[in-house]
């Protein structure tokens, strides 16, 4: 009897839970679209996994809509570094926003029921102690909404894409979603000898990320070399073509379908990760100079600098590093530098380098608003390097005010402060921008605008003059002070 009650209670709870999850899970996404075609390219040629999905979507709703949901599994979303959506024909960028899913609100009607519920389910709660989802301890009942048998939790994060227009029913739109993921590949085996061959393991999905029904889709995987140790077989066709693996054509796939894609392959390049980067940009109006200094934790053997560069230096803790060479070419300056010692897996190298460039190349004056604008890349990233943590500091001249920072991507932390250095009275305006998980897609320009009155230019020479007036005043005071003790005879002529 008790077990029957338990089962009944469980069924009631499951159905109501399922009903609730139906409202917040896969079919949480209203099925207004249908992907007529999807072509996915996974680029594994570097240590950054780049997934480019070309989607042709059709509006199957009876109203005009302009929003599209794009899902990314949680394990992948934690490694997401960059996401961009562009329309294929016009190359227009669409806005992308991460969606916050409402947690399940479980209201227990009686203590007994909730206790039994706790018995049978492993609950996941969020910060407010609300139940988000649960996976059954004893029963393997798949819930009505998904084919995922591992848990009933929605381990999928959704991104909402806002098209720049509303699409009529039955109208099609073609767009491309570019995403970059860092630290997704695992070395397998983890340790090798110095002369051993490095192999990586990639785990993904044979089907593309889709919250909607897909009529047909294909996945193409690009590998760095033709040495593939193993790869997943598929229900569809797998065509191996030297460095490419083609999975497809899959017809009529349901939303959020999953089939493991596991590739074990050789990767002979360096896995460049810069664990920390600090980039200092110092503006000097008098000198018409922009000083750039970058403190690194890795190396590369070739970086191109802007053409008008001067006073380049490359140092580490010991001092100047001479394994470097600067040469001027027609449209750029090449600075070759090598670390003091070769780097094997697990080895570190810390160094910094800097140079000066004419300020006019990067800062312009906008007459109507009366503001100066600095337009400079956020980072100059080496092509296949991942930066775990980046800190960019911009130092504006003394007296700069009304500072505004504009970036094409989200910055993790932005702080404004004061930086004191040579010949400063009130200190210079300091902006610190911090971001983690940076790849070379982030080497886009950021704009910093500030107001700087020309009178502020006088601050520096006047402060020096004031300082030099000191000795004069001192001598004037000294000449007027009596230093003799007692009366003394003086010539009064």
């Amino acid at each position, binding site marked *: 009897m008790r077990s029957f009650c338990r089962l009944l209670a469980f069924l009631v709870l499951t159905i109501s839970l399922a009903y609730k999850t139906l409202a917040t899970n896969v079919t949480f996404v209203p099925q207004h679209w249908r992907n007529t075609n999807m072509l996915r390219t996974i680029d594994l040629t570097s240590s950054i996994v780049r997934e480019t999905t070309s989607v042709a979507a059709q509006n199957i709703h009876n109203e005009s809509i302009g929003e599209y949901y794009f899902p990314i599994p949680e394990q992948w979303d934690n490694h997401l570094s960059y996401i961009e959506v562009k329309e294929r024909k016009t190359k227009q960028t669409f806005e992308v926003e991460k969606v916050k899913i409402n947690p399940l609100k479980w209201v227990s009607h009686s203590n007994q029921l909730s206790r039994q519920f706790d018995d049978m389910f492993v609950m996941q709660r969020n910060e407010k102690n609300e139940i988000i989802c649960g996976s059954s301890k004893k029963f393997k009942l798949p819930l009505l909404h998904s084919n995922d048998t591992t848990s009933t939790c929605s381990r999928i994060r959704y991104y909402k894409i806002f098209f720049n227009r509303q699409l009529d029913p039955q109208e099609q739109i073609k767009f491309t979603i570019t995403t970059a993921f860092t630290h997704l590949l695992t070395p397998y085996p983890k340790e090798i000898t110095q002369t051993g061959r490095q192999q990586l393991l990639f785990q993904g999905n044979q089907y593309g990320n889709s919250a909607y029904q897909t009529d047909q889709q294909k996945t193409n995987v690009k590998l760095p070399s033709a040495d593939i140790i193993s790869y997943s077989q598929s229900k569809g066709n797998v065509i191996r073509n030297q460095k490419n693996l083609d999975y497809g054509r899959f017809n009529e796939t349901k939303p959020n379908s999953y089939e493991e894609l596991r590739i074990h392959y050789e990767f002979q390049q360096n896995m460049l990760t810069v664990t920390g980067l600090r980039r200092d940009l110092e503006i000097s109006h008098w000198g018409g100079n922009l000083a750039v200094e970058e403190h690194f934790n890795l190396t590369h053997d070739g970086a191109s600098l802007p053409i008008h560069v001067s006073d380049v230096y490359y140092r580490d803790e010991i001092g100047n590093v001479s394994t470097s060479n600067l040469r001027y070419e027609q449209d750029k300056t090449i600075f070759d530098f090598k670390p003091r010692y070769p780097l094997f897996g697990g080895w570190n190298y810390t160094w910094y380098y800097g140079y000066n460039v004419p300020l006019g190349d990067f800062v312009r004056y906008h007459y109507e608003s009366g503001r100066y604008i600095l337009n400079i890349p956020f980072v100059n990233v080496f092509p296949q390097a991942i930066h775990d943590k980046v800190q960019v500091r911009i130092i504006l001249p003394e007296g700069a005010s009304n500072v505004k920072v*504009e970036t094409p991507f989200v910055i993790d932390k932005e702080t404004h402060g004061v930086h004191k250095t040579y010949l400063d009275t009130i200190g210079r305006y300091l902006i610190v921008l911090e971001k983690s998980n940076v790849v070379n897609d982030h080497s886009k320009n950021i704009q910093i605008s500030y107001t700087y009155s020309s009178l502020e230019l006088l601050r520096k020479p006047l402060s020096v003059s004031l300082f030099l007036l000191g000795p*004069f005043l001192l001598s004037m005071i000294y000449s007027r002070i009596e230093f003799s003790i007692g009366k003394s005879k003086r010539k009064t002529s």
Partner: protein
Amino acid sequence: MTGLSDWETGKPYETPISQVFFPLLAFLFLLSGFVAASTFSVIKAKTSLILELSSAIPASLSLGFGTLFLFMAKTKEMVV
């Protein structure tokens, strides 16, 4: 307007005084500064506060500007 659009329509920054002149200006300001300072040193003590200040202030101003241009001077591009 956005920073980028403003930047594109803006004029590249140019220093108020062309950088080429910095060494020359440094020399002239420092010279006049030292001349003024020597004028100050010749004044007999306790003659007149205003007289002393009238030498001290131009001297310190010239010397101040002179040292600034001295720090900023880059003689690489100067044609002398």
